[in-house]
């Protein structure tokens, strides 16, 4: 009983009008949480692309792979920029996103063909996740998710071709 009483908010005990001041901040709206997840997902893709490109350069055989990956990385950076522009943070809220779900994939994509295969799977998963997000999003945000999902879907055949050492239908 003592422990429970000690946990009561001060305002409730004192009976003053300070409940709103002392109450926990409201949870972010569902669409804000989903947008932050989308931002985190794009940041993760950018991290993975950067790692594969770095490994390719370190291996000294980067010319072909760099030419394939850099344009895709640039598009992810555009995705991230556009997603961030849609995030309106109310005054008094934490500026940084709260921890969100991460894909159940290894943190390091690996080098060479393994890295490309990793990116290919990551793109496919990212495109599917964006499709999931648009179901309950506000209209204009749903359109952005759909467009980004489509862009990421077009990256898959490019990476398939890169992994196979051929020219894709997309890049042909």
């Amino acid at each position: 009983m003592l422990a429970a009483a000690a946990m009561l908010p001060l305002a409730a005990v004192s009976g003053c009008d300070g409940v709103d001041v002392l109450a926990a901040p409201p949870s972010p709206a569902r669409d804000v949480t989903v947008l932050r997840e989308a931002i985190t997902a794009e940041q993760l893709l950018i991290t993975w692309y950067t790692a594969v490109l770095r490994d390719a350069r370190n291996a000294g055989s980067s010319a072909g792979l760099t030419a394939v990956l850099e344009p895709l990385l640039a598009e992810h950076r555009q995705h991230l920029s556009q997603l961030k522009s849609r995030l309106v943070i109310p005054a008094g809220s934490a500026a940084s996103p709260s921890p969100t779900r991460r894909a159940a994939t290894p943190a390091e994509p690996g080098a060479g063909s393994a890295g490309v295969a990793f990116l290919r799977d990551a793109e496919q998963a990212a495109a599917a996740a964006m499709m999931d997000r648009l179901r309950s999003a506000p209209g204009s945000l749903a359109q952005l998710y759909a467009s980004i999902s489509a862009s990421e879907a077009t990256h898959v055949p490019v990476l398939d071709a890169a992994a196979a050492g051929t020219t894709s239908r997309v890049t042909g």
Partner: protein
Amino acid sequence: MSSHAAPAPGTVTALQAALAAEHAAVYGYGVVGAYLSGSEQATATTDWVAHQVARDRLEAMLRSAGGSQPTAAAVAYQLPMPVRNAREAAALAVVLEDRVATAYLGLVALSSTAIREYGAQQVQASALRAATWRGSTVAFPGLTSAALAAPRRPHS
């Protein structure tokens, strides 16, 4: 959608816009294919059929959306650019796909989850076809520069 339920506001307009884009694509791919040969012509034929299937699906969706009469195809369409060779034919295909993707994004903004998903799937299909003809990918298939420059605040 039930045949008896009134469609949500904007549904018929967005479906008609997508249908109009599909009609134009079906016509346009006829021109595209005429300037191609071999595997490129086969690709154009595949894409042409895909647009015919999508057109038929949209017409069915419109009929079930309160019995709306689907927009008819025009007898002919003015091409957005001259087409005199295979390169220009591929460029026309890109324009057709971009316009189709933009029209389907109109469905994605609707409240019906089923229509949203269909619209998004079609944006994706169109983006894949456009990337093939363009020879590269783009960051925002179907979204206009105006839409990207002035995003609406989702949480005000």
